[in-house]
């Protein structure tokens, strides 16, 4: 369990983390979400006692990090995949880490095996790909078989196999009763792994809820309709209280406020031609985008003009609701 109370961090005049209070619970995977520069890494560094909070406090299994007697038993962290001396081999790196806790070489070989690095264990870490660096970081985090694992952007640079592997690892650890805390700036990543999300934007907590609650609160559902009679259908749907949004094509609209059943009935009653009718849930990505729309520090935009606040409309950013569910647990 990680508990932050009123935690703040300023770098000069920049407030990276602004009075955040949250708890990361055991037995579930908690996703720590936020756009670039939101303060995720800074928060994680404070958890590990690397950055000193400007105010507030944070504890790991009830203790400030500096007070932990056997830190590797309590928490294993991956915070910087490149944070390894490039001219040291993976094995030497891990042996040096293990030595701080008197952990055996056997365990070092075990985590190398676990992360698939055995074949390259004697090679210098500087030659590793980003994905291999991530694996080495994860190997280090697992050395002490800790009660908490905390990974900062763990899937960065991993291939699809690697991503799946991290998800499974997170799931198993959580099922094992451990506390799993993963950061990401991508909702799509977190929604497939996490049970709980903590969203941070500009250093403030914007949401702290189970994925289910989060979805209920922020995701909107709608119906996608493609019809050569779209214009007429839109009128009728609007009359019955539906809200119609024109999509990318003249014949394609999105309807909220009425479900697919109602729309089908209207079409039948007026002999309108339906080419496509399907439920569509806005993905969590959409919900997240909306939530953090004003919170992004580094948003692409026209220089000198405020960045657009409208949320994305393109449907390729959306994922079907049912698929989302299936992916989340199954992996």
């Amino acid at each position, binding site marked *: 369990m990680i508990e932050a109370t009123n935690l703040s961090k300023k770098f000069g005049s920049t407030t990276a983390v602004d009075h955040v209070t949250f708890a990361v619970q055991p037995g579930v995977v908690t996703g720590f979400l936020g756009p670039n520069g939101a303060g995720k890494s800074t928060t994680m560094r404070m958890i590990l006692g690397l950055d000193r909070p400007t105010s507030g406090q944070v504890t790991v299994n009830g203790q400030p990090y500096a007070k932990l007697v056997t830190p590797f038993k309590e928490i294993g962290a991956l915070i910087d995949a490149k944070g390894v001396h490039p*001219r040291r081999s993976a094995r030497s790196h891990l042996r040096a880490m293990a030595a701080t806790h008197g952990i055996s070489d056997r365990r070092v070989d075990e985590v190398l095996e676990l992360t*698939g690095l055995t074949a390259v264990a004697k090679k210098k870490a500087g030659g590793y790909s980003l994905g291999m660096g991530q694996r080495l970081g994860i190997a280090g985090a697992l050395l002490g*078989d800790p009660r908490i694992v905390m990974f900062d952007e763990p899937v960065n640079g991993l291939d699809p196999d690697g991503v799946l592997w991290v998800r499974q690892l997170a799931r198993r650890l959580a099922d094992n009763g451990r506390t799993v805390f993963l950061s990401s700036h991508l909702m799509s990543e977190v929604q497939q792994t996490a049970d709980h999300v903590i969203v941070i934007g500009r250093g403030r907590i914007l949401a702290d809820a189970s994925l289910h609650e989060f979805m209920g609160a922020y995701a909107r559902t709608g119906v996608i309709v493609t019809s050569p009679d779209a214009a007429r259908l839109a009128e009728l749907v609007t009359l019955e209280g539906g809200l119609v949004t024109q999509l990318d094509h003249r014949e394609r609209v999105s309807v909220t406020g009425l479900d697919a059943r109602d729309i089908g009935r209207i079409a039948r009653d007026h002999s309108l031609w339906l080419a496509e009718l399907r439920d569509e849930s806005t993905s969590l990505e959409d919900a997240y985008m909306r939530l953090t729309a004003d919170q992004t520090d580094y948003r692409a935009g026209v220089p000198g003009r405020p960045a657009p606040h409208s949320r994305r409309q393109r449907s390729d950013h959306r994922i079907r609701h049912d698929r989302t569910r299936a992916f989340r647990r199954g992996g």
Partner: protein
Amino acid sequence: MTTASATTAPAPSAAAVEVIAHPAGYRRAVRSEWIKARSLRSTWILVAFALAAFVGVPTLVVANASDVGSSSSAEVMGVLYFGLDFVLLLVAVLGALLTTSEFTTGMARNTFTATPGRGTVLAAKATIAGLFALAIGIVGLATAWAVNAGGLADLGVSIDLGDTATMRALLVNQLSIVVFAMLAVALGVLLRSSVGAIFTIVAMQLILPGVLAIVPNTIANWVGAVLPSAAASAAVATEPLAAGQIGLDSGWGLVVLLAWAVVPMAGALVSLRARDI
């Protein structure tokens, strides 16, 4: 590359057998630092260069000397330290890299996560740097002596360890190697930059002494006199200072030399505790 095999292996979870982990403290941090230091080739290259300089310079001098007149035992001991300036620089580079490389590579985050005590890590690093310095000093001197014993005998001079001045020269010079290692470790922590730390030592060793000694300014002359190498020279000096000469006597020389290890190290500890990693 067989990294793909990682994913075909059963998805990992908790360790099958309970992992034994012991409290992280100074002793284990030293072991960890030792593994880190010895697993870098640069460490051994620097050690080899330092030993080569330690043995090579006096050997060249002795081999090419024809007549050294009647030298005292302490002066002959001094000949064995003709390579000391190089040794000090190389040991300083070694000590600096031990700390700066942690910050420049980001390894420091791992190091201080593994051992949360900042002072503990600093002490462990200082221990390893000190042990390397001590080993280089002992092996270097013993080898230089062994290699040149014949040559010195041919020149009709010898070293007498029973002589206080000789023993003093030996101890102070050996000590100066350790002091430079400590100074470098501390500078590495304070500056967190290899170039910065090494340049500072090079400036103190090679640039400042020449400049500060010749400028007509008493304060500058005093600064030059308390630089580490000047302090070490003062500490081994057998002749008292001339009247009005700016410099340290041998007692103060030793104190100032030690201060070059203690004061920067104290500063490093304060800085390490205050700053973010």
